């Protein structure tokens, strides 16, 4: 019985969502910084993805007699302490750095959504227990928690991603829960409840889609933050294993040569800074576009 009644709703929903999406896009396209950000990001991701085909050298090809070469036509960014081409390494590094950021945020956001929506929808004791558990994780300084988890798990790509994601689960869970509490008061939810929609269905097809905007913004920012945090972990010797050219690991290895060969730390550093910067541009743009207060 409920089937027939709610049938038109998703249709409407979809139409509404589509127009909403178009509106956001229109709004976003007006934001110059965000557009620059998106363009740079796309280029970066393309470069990283196509690294095996466009990188002029193998990222681990050593040429010790030619170490510390300064930037030239042959080596765009110069070579590092083992004579490896820094340009190629920065290209390959993008694969690891950017995917570390995205994967870690993806994991923490998905888990955060699960936890947050359960807490937010059910409320009461369930909410209370979940929130107190999150309090425990949040009471430990984030960086410290990540460092501890990273040393428990040991080095490696997957382990680093896990370490980076655990600490940010509470934040996204909290955000979703807050959003959920706000949405739950809305009439359409009451309507769904009154017609006996399943809880699962209410959460997934009604509540969640309407809670997503702040999540999208915070995830974009989260990716940026995670990339710098990952670089920090590599810097103190945790994180991915060499010769994987992760940007933070490149910086960490090069720091003892920074005085005589500054290009060793400048290029990977700039790569991190640029990526984080454009991600923030996009995040900001999205926030403005999604925030109805700033519509005009």
């Amino acid at each position, binding site marked *: 019985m409920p089937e027939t009644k709610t049938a038109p709703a998703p249709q409407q929903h979809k139409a509404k969502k589509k127009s909403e999406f178009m509106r956001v896009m229109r709004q976003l396209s007006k934001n110059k910084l965000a557009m620059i950000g998106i363009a740079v990001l796309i280029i970066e991701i393309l470069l990283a993805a196509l690294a095996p085909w466009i990188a002029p050298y193998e990222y*681990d*090809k*050593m040429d*010790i*007699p030619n*170490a510390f070469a300064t930037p030239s036509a042959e080596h765009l960014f110069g070579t590092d*302490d*083992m*004579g490896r081409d820094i340009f190629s390494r920065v290209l390959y590094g993008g694969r690891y750095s950017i995917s570390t950021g995205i994967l870690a945020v993806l994991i923490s956001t998905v888990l955060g959504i699960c936890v947050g929506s359960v807490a937010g929808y059910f409320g009461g004791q369930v909410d209370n227990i979940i929130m107190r558990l999150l309090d425990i994780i949040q009471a430990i300084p984030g960086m410290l928690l990540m460092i501890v988890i990273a*040393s428990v798990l*040991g*080095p490696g790509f997957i382990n680093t991603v896990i370490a980076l994601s655990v600490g940010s689960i509470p934040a996204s869970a909290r955000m979703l829960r807050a959003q959920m509490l706000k949405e739950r008061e809305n009439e359409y939810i009451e309507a769904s409840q009154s017609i006996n929609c399943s809880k699962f269905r209410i959460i997934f097809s009604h509540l969640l889609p309407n809670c997503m905007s702040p999540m999208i913004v915070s995830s974009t920012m989260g990716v940026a933050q995670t990339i710098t945090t990952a670089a920090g972990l590599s810097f103190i*010797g945790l994180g991915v*294993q*060499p*010769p994987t050219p992760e940007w933070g690991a490149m910086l960490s*290895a090069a*720091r*003892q*040569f*920074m*005085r*005589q060969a500054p290009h060793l730390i400048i290029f990977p550093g700039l790569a991190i800074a640029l990526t984080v910067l454009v991600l923030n541009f996009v995040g900001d743009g999205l926030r403005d576009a999604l925030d109805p207060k700033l519509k005009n």
Partner: protein
Amino acid sequence: MKLRKALSIVLAVLMLVSVLAACGGEKTPNTPDTPNTPSTPDGGNGGGGAEKTGDGVLTVGYATVIDSMTPFRSNTGQDAPYMTLLFESLAVLNDQSEYVKWAAKDYTTSDGGFTYDVEIYDNITDSAGNHITADDIVWFLEETIKAALKPDFSKIESVTKTGDYTFQVKLSSNMVGLFDSLMKHTFVISKAAYEASKDGFATECVTTSAYKVTGFEASSYITFEKRDDYWQDESLVPECVAAKTPKITFRFITEASQMGTALETGTVDMVIDMPSATAVQYLDNSAYSSWESPNMQGWTLFFSGADSRPVANDVKLRQAICTAIDPQGLITAIASGHGSPMYDVCPPTAIGYNPKWDSEDYYNYDEDAAKALLAESDYAGQELEILCGSSNQRMAEVIQGYLGAIGINVKLNALDMAQLTAIRLDGTKYDMFINTIGATTLANHWSIRYDPNAYATGDGTSRHDYTLGEMLYKTWTVDGYTEENIDEVHYYIKDNAIAYGLFNPQRFTIWRSDLGIENTVYDYAGWPSVAATTFTNA
């Protein structure tokens, strides 16, 4: 409105105070105890030259940190230049690798190196005024055996006091150099002072050397000042441990990129063991002077002896690996060009090393020959694993590069000290292990690494090579430590590529040229002895 504002300010202040209160209300770092403050940074002195501190304190930068001044410690950090300033030991090793008596007045052996009778000076006092007798030494030896932090001490069978200042030590082995090494590691400390200390000398210690500790902050700095009540007649003190410099501060600098900065900004007057990448920047600068010494240990590539690993039973594969590595490349990349190739698993500084080995072939770098050897081996593209400490990751990367060039697939496993310590003797966990082994004699080095009975799992890499074992045992005795027997072991390890000496980096000490150094004295580890050297302008 006013009330609100006031409340907010009160709360903000409360917030700050609560944190400060929670930690004892100590708001400012305690200035009186802190070491030598750098000279006022002088913007006008921009020529890159060193600044003259001349404050009477010699401040030395060093990378290895001590967390505690306890005399009961493992061999880690035993060569740190401040160790001899804390406690006097029975004997000391000088820069000629000879053991000289220090707190011991005399010692004799009666039965071919198993029993020793030792006499100490009768006038030893520590910085708290305690008089030291044979009881203290016996107590220290017994405690050290119990603590089991130094493997050599497990070979002591018994210690007995034989007089007020004499005692007898019985050993279970008469291996060359064992007793000397024990003498060097037996600290003279007063039992009463140790037991009176609230934390076992961790933060405050009573010294027996010519210095007393006047400032200490774990992992940060340690300051020594010359005692005016030192017990020994200065003419009887071995030259390498003489006390000439009145006040010395060691400043621990763990961040390698900060070493040069510390020297240039005058935070330190001298850096001992500066990483080569930084040190080479000062070699051509007349404002700084340098001292280079070969590393006492050298870097060695150990192959796993565990049957589950492809390298364990494949001589050709091991030989291919040795031939594929260019020591010169390692020296360039890792030691900034300052180092020497090795011709044995031990560096030439080890007692018993035969210089004739230097002129013989030692897996000369040859990519084609390596490929040919690889083709003869059973290697079928497996992923081989190199284990190393996280601080030697770069060395492992270079080796990985060389092996990749002949088609060997290598994975790195760089671990922190704790994890490394846990698995380094377990050959099933790696194919190759990059390590450096400190030992004064070849026999000592070999016993740590290649004795198949040394550990529950076999030798240092889980190998059970009893042929090698028999050869080793022959060299252990004083009579068996002959050129012939040593040669036998050397060629066996070399021909079978059981381990491979990679290269021996030079180590650097860099200091301000205007320190006014007269008569540099070196310690056994090859460092300029900062206490025994005269600085006219510290």
